[in-house]
């Protein structure tokens, strides 16, 4: 089990290529390179915050641990910003849900606490909880990652350690221990790992297996220079965090924007409605800040919302990794995949997330 093809060079594929190469495999990476990966349109929030059930939460906690290990291993951590995360709730329903969540997370020994307004001011004076905020939570272990540079760094480290990287070569079909490129060229290996993000469903279908996908969308915008944020904020109306160069990244997850183009033209009106207006209500001195660059985030989510990781049934040597929370989970997936593919071990924590579960669904319906 020495030659491995990795399909996809987003954060997940790059992390897998890096880990497999370090573990001694001869890795070849293919990526079409002509489409914006979800890695580039992600809020890139490292967390195990609202991940249910416990098995999925634990996977994300393991991902956060592997991020710390990766920083150790690479001896630098410019890409991972351990800023902590603020969440607040407006209205009675949200309030109760937040209290329940914090209690649940504390019960799982996940760092989460309820804080008062004075503590919030100490954590980040730039954030103003609007009227009606009844509870504020803080998650000190959470943060964000510069996902594109991290993916690039991992891919570069893989390449430097001997991996062959083909960006601009699109894989058209997957098969037993083989892929064929869109120009018809076949490539064989001892194993193929499909880490094709939101294209996973379509690609794995070429190997005769159905992974239903249910991508959701969010509206993202990088601002012009804005007030400095020390932490990040999660709320129903708006998510926001620093983005470097004095910019902020704003995200609205309740967007009504549709389509599959991550870089559509979004009207000034929509940007104001989705991003700027809700941000103005919660960030001090935000007046005059504009959106410099807007994107549509299209998430790579299997239909039931949970990761699909493991050998694809009835297709020898084909292994699939597809998940929401790819940024948090990539280093953990990479470690697990390397262990399962190269050493034949089984990662127990992945048991609930195997591809077979979809097989069961389709045969019963």
């Amino acid at each position, binding site marked *: 089990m020495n030659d491995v093809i990795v399909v996809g060079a987003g954060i997940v594929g790059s992390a897998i290529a890096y880990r497999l190469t370090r573990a001694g495999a001869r890795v070849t990476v293919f990526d079409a390179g002509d489409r914006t990966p979800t890695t580039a349109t992600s809020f890139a929030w490292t967390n195990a915050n609202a991940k249910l059930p416990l098995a999925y939460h634990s996977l994300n906690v393991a991902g956060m641990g592997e991020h710390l290990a990766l920083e150790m291993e690479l001896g630098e951590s410019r890409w991972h910003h351990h800023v*902590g995360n603020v969440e607040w709730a407006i209205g009675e329903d949200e309030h109760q849900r937040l209290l329940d969540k914090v209690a649940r997370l504390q019960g799982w020994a996940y760092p989460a606490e309820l804080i008062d307004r004075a503590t919030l001011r100490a954590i980040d004076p730039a954030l103003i909880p609007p009227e009606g905020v009844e509870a504020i939570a803080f998650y000190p272990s959470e943060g964000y990652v510069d996902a594109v540079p991290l993916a690039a760094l991992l891919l570069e480290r893989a390449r430097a350690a001997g991996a062959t990287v083909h960006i601009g070569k699109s894989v058209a079909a997957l098969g037993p221990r083989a892929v064929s490129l869109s120009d018809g060229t076949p490539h064989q290996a001892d194993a193929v790992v499909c880490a094709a993000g939101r294209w996973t469903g379509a690609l794995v279908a070429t190997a005769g297996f159905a992974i239903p996908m249910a991508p959701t969308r969010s509206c993202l915008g990088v601002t012009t220079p804005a007030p400095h944020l020390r932490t990040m904020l999660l709320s129903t109306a708006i998510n926001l965090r620093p983005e470097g160069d004095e910019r902020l990244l704003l995200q609205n997850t309740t967007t009504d924007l549709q389509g599959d183009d991550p870089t559509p033209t979004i009207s000034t009106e929509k940007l104001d409605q989705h991003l700027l207006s809700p941000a103005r209500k919660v960030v001090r001195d935000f007046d005059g800040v504009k959106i410099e660059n807007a994107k549509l985030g299209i998430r790579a989510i299997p239909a039931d919302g949970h990761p699909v990781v493991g050998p694809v049934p009835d297709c020898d040597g084909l292994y699939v990794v597809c998940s929401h929370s790819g940024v948090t989970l990539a280093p953990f997936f990479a470690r697990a995949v390397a262990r399962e593919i190269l050493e034949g071990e089984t990662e127990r924590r992945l048991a609930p997330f195997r591809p077979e579960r979809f097989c069961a669904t389709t045969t019963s319906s």
Partner: protein
Amino acid sequence: MRDNNVVVIGAGVIGSSIAYHLAREGVRVTLFDDADAPSSPSASWASAGGVRSQRRDSREWALTVAAAARWHSLSDELQASTGFRSGGHLHVVEREEDVDELRARVEREREAGIRVEYVEHSELRQLAAALAPSVIAAAYTPGDGQADPRATTSAFSSAAVRAGATFNRTYVDAIALHERRAAGVVVNGTTHAAATTVLAAGSWSLRLAHAAGLNLPISLRAYQMLLSMPQRPSLAPTVTATNRALSLKQLQTGAFMIGGGWPGEIDEQSHTCRTTQESIDGNWSVAAAIVPALAPMRPATSWCGLEGDSFDGVPLIGPVPHVQGLYVAVGFTGHGFQIAPAVGEAVAQAILTNCEPASLRELNPAREGGIA
């Protein structure tokens, strides 16, 4: 001596510091290491990065005092961040019967020039509210703190290169020996000649010395480290404790880094190590006894590194008896990081003057029980 060239084997924090201090004196230095930057399982990679000048063997006092004077401006000097943060260091005690010994030790260290004071009660709580109520007193070194061992190592090696040293990223096969004289190193089958050879290869020193017919009185040890998930800042000083195998600090990320000499498992054949569940559990529970906030949590990640433990607990630094031209700086026993700046300076001085600085006198490799 200035006209001759020196090879340093090992670009960890010790070897890099030696190379830097030699290069800045105009000595032609070549630093050999196959790794670009500290990597697993080297001690400079695995290190907890504690900058602690107290509770050291008296034989290290001169080095630790000299090093303590440099840490605060070391980033400026090396033109690269060491990540040093001066939150102080607390060595805590939990039992009344340990207080007298603690106070006596503080007195001895003060006389040696170490900036250390005895603290208790409200003053202690003010310094570290996160400590358990069982902690009753501490020795406090306000100038101590923590730094990033990987960044510090790279800062030294880059500064060495800027000062004219050559960093040769090659694996050293052997020390080149001609009769009883070291003549450089063998790399890729050819000899890279040098007037002086410095062995500072951490855990790899054992093998290199052995192949040269030298028996270092050092044993291989795997030191384990743990990291918690990041928490809100609650502990500025780094912490050690009497009667507990513990070193503990909160990093800038908010994560608690926990160590204290808990052993990992060594695979001598592959020169690697792995953590054990027993050490992870044991180390975590000791940490939770001193910082109760850790009690409900679990480690986010763990690792271990290989180090050389010296026969008498302090390093062997200086010329090797009966082998001309060979110096060692080995056996740092898990506490070489803080003294690294002073070790580099002292070794450079020893090589330049061919005369042993006072700070190294009691660490001479030929001391009783040392290299025969």
